[in-house]
C-alpha cells in the first residue's frame, strides 16, 4: 500500500489515538480510501487532539462525518480570518477608604 507523506502521517495520527497496535495497517487502508479533505482535517488536529473515540468511529464506519473530522474542518473554515476584537475587560475600581 503506497501512501503519500500526508496520508501516512494522518494514518499514524489515528493509529496512535486508537491505542490498538494491531490496527496499524487497517488505518492505512482507511486513509487510502479517504478524500484529501478528511486527511487535511486529521492533520489540522494532529497527534494528541484526535480522541480514541474518533479514531475508533472512523475505522468502524470509514465516515469522516461520523468521526467528527469533516464537520470540525468546515466549522473552522467558516470562522472569519481576523479574530474579533476582544472587549476590554472592565477595570476594577479600587476601593478607597473614606477618610
Amino acid at each position, binding site marked *: *500500500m503506497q501512501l503519500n507523506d500526508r496520508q501516512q502521517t494522518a494514518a499514524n495520527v489515528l493509529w496512535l489515538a486508537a491505542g*490498538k497496535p*494491531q*490496527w496499524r*495497517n*487497517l488505518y492505512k*487502508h482507511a486513509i487510502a480510501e479517504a478524500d484529501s479533505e478528511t486527511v487535511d482535517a486529521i492533520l489540522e488536529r494532529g497527534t494528541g487532539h484526535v480522541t480514541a473515540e474518533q479514531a475508533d468511529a472512523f*475505522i*468502524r464506519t*470509514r465516515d469522516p462525518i461520523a468521526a467528527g473530522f469533516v464537520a470540525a474542518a468546515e466549522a473552522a473554515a467558516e470562522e472569519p480570518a481576523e479574530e474579533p476584537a476582544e472587549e476590554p475587560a472592565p477595570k476594577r475600581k479600587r476601593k478607597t477608604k473614606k477618610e
Partner: protein
Amino acid sequence: MTVTDFASLRAAVIDDAILSTDYFAETGTYLPKEGEARSVIVNARFKLDTNYTDEGDEETVETLQVLVKRNSTDGIDRPMIGDRFLRSEARDPSQRPFMFSGEIAAEIGTTHYKLIFWRHTETGRGAGQS
C-alpha cells in the same frame, strides 16, 4: 504464463498453489459488515492463543490467519471491523464465525494480504470460576 518479475512470480505461486483448493486452500463464507455473504477462497492457519487482560482475566482465543486475494469476487477487498468469516462445516463443525480482529498481519504486494480473524472460547475469572 510468462513471469517477468518477482512480484508476478510470487502472485502466480500464491494463486496457483497456496490459494488453490486442489492443494492448500479452502472455501469459506465471508460475512461482511456491509453487504451480502459470499464465498471466498482462503489459506487459513488455525492457532490457539491465551490472552491475559488488564483485568486479570485469562482468555482463550482461537485465531485464524487468513491469506486471501484483494478483490471483491473470491477474495476480500475492504476488510472492516465487524466482518466475519465462517469456515466450511467439514472443517469447523461448530459453525461459529470468526470476527475480523482489525489486524492486517502482512501485505503481499498489492494482490494479497493476511488478515487475522479470531473468536473467544473461554474466559477464566479467578479461582473456581470459568
